[in-house]
């Protein structure tokens, strides 16, 4: 049962702007003021708009204003039908495009009862983990930049580039990739895929030490992150957060463990969890998750079974029986759930995406007030929001 007292109340923006404190007449009185952070702001990562109520440097209230990149993804998905909507999902959370493909495909496969072979499952898992790794690398770089250190940004991008190259060889795209489709993958693996991934793993392992030396061990970073933006476990659950944000608050909930999909039940990996739920915990959880991703890929890369990469006829019409279908998976940012309502025709009657970032962003209204502007920036960055995923 969700504890409603832990969730901040929803009021309209006009209402809050109107409720500004009355002006005090004494000459030394200070006034709280409103500032727009975004939609064009370097640290809101896209077109997120936050209306801040500030008291000097201290943040009193944060009001997220959404909708600047709303494209009606779910309505589009209802219009284009089962097979084509997969190719829209790469624009949701562009850093988890293959994972988004996978969730939608898995829902359709569940609905239409499409059987998959082992090769498809293993390759999908490898790609999901590669993508988690590159997403966290990008986050790490941007996180450093938000805290004022520019160098980690380029280190992160340098190493992410190697993963992007691997994607490019097999998939042909670098960022908005469409690889997984109902019944398998669009293409088989590139012949050099295994060798490339192995050399990547060899390269990545010593790199984690470098990241720690550059950022993790820095006293300023630790001072800026510890006990900033604490999110307790109960509030984290009540606010519907998921992924590293939830796990940093000490809730060991990871769909890869609790409801294994792909071949996650056949590999060994640990789920890092935090204790306090501050920015430091969220940082540490992601840094450890990168190591786990490397370990998962390492276990799978030598054991890719032989088989076809697609089990259905390409372009075949998909008509799932009438019913409501739901599937959820763990992307780099949290739980991505897809709900589809089928009436037996070629197009779903209703599609709903439960995207992780929308819920993760919402906890900002709870944890940011009381901190400084600098804290707010590190909190936004530690939540790792991707705005097209919030607005859809």
């Amino acid at each position, binding site marked *: 049962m969700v504890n409603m007292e832990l969730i901040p109340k929803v009021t309209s923006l006009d209402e809050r702007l109107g409720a500004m404190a009355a002006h005090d007449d004494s000459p030394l009185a200070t006034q709280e003021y409103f*500032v727009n952070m975004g939609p064009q702001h370097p640290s809101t990562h896209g077109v997120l708009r936050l209306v801040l109520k500030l008291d000097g440097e201290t943040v009193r209230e944060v009001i997220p204003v959404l909708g600047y990149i709303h494209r009606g993804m779910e309505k589009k998905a209802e219009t284009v039908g089962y097979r084509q909507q997969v190719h829209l999902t790469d624009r949701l959370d562009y850093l988890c495009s293959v994972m988004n493909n996978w969730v939608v495909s898995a829902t359709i496969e569940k609905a239409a009862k499409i059987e998959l072979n082992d090769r498809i499952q293993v390759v999908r898992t490898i790609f999901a983990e590669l993508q988690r790794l590159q997403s966290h690398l990008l986050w790490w770089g941007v996180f450093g930049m938000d805290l004022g250190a520019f160098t980690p940004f380029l*280190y992160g991008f340098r190493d992410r580039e190697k993963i992007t190259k691997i994607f490019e060889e097999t998939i042909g795209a670098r960022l908005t990739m469409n690889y997984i489709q109902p019944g398998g993958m669009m293409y088989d693996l590139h012949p050099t895929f295994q060798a490339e991934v192995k050399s990547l793993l060899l390269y990545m392992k010593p790199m984690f030490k470098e990241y720690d030396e550059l950022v993790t061990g820095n006293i300023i970073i630790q001072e800026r992150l510890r006990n900033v933006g604490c999110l307790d476990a109960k509030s984290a659950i009540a606010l519907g957060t998921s992924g590293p944000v939830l796990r940093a608050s000490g809730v060991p909930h990871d769909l890869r463990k609790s409801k294994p999909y792909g071949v996650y039940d056949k590999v060994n990996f640990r789920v890092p969890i935090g204790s306090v739920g501050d920015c430091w915990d969220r940082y540490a959880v992601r840094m450890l998750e990168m190591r786990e991703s490397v370990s998962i890929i390492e276990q799978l890369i030598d054991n890719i079974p032989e088989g076809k990469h697609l089990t259905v006829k390409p372009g075949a019409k998909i008509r799932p029986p009438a019913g409501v279908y739901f599937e959820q998976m763990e992307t780099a940012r949290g739980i991505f759930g897809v709900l589809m309502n089928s009436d037996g025709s070629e197009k779903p009657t209703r599609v709903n995406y439960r995207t992780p970032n929308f819920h993760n962003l919402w906890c900002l209204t709870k944890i940011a007030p009381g901190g400084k502007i*600098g804290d707010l920036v590190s909190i936004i960055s530690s939540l790792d929001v991707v705005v097209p995923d919030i607005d859809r």
Partner: protein
Amino acid sequence: MSVSSFSRNIVSHLDSSPGTSAALFVSGLVGTLAFMSLMALILIYVERKVAAHFQCRLGPMRVGWHGILQSVADALKLILKEDIVPFSADKLMHATAPVFAVVAMLLTLIAIPLSSSLTLADSNIGVLYISAVSGLGVLGILLGGWSSNNKWSLIGAMRAGAQIISYELSATLSVLVIIMLSGSLKLSTIIQSQANGWWIWRAPGVGLIAFITFIISSTAEINRTPFDLAEGESELTAGFHTEYSGMRFAFFFLAEYLNLFVVSALGATLFLGGWMPLHIGDQQGLFSGFNQVMDLIPEFVWFMLKTASLIFLSMWFRWTFPRLRVDQLMKLEWKILMPIGFLNLVLAALMTFFGFFFFATGRGF
């Protein structure tokens, strides 16, 4: 004949009547201006290259050999760019602010001795003059942030004001140590007093502590990472110069790099012996040959080498450290640096009183 003695001859030859003296001063001013503009261009290029190599990339490579003309191209671009003044800005203030920032820096440069003869104004209160005039720079930042009529700019300006005024205390405290040890406010005398050993190691412990305090507080005074809160781009978009474009923005940019040069030059002058060559032992000792070789290097080159190494240190900070938070910044100054500075000052006073520092009797290091 070395460069310095050559220029000294010219100066003594010209400096005969008040008229030529005034003409010399004006031409010196123009020379300083030209030198500094060139310096800023070089520093911007160097910063980009240093940053690039810290970040495993090449930096500017296209304009000229290894991008050596990149700063010139940037300057041209900024001159040609449209100068946008926000509609609701205070036009006069908005126009004056960048000038304040640059003029304050140019004024400090007059007093800095580039070599024993290349000094425009060797005032007997040189140190006092520099700390007084460099304080004008904050006026430019405050005005710029305020007149832009933008809340983000105002936050940046207020941060800069609080920060610069706070850290000025620590910087002055560490400079006071050197004034006390050398017994003079005149920069040339301070340099002369380091003929037998630079102050950083000549006063045991005290000089080093003062040097570290000076480096930290001067980095904060010139708004560079980890103390770049006034313009922290991830927090305040660009802080006090958000609403500036074109040449006015370039003025702030110029002032920032001149600032870097001035504090590094001051650090080199006060703690690293200015234009004094490095000597080990006295002239007759084991290292007399080494000392003679060191003397062959012109004074100006010594000064620039020392300044450049301090500038590199500052760039190293910038491309390694993240930014402090505003309350941590104040905590560092008022709870850590200030008490250390005062303690150090007391120690220096005791040392000066008892004459307890190395090489006091003319023996080199």
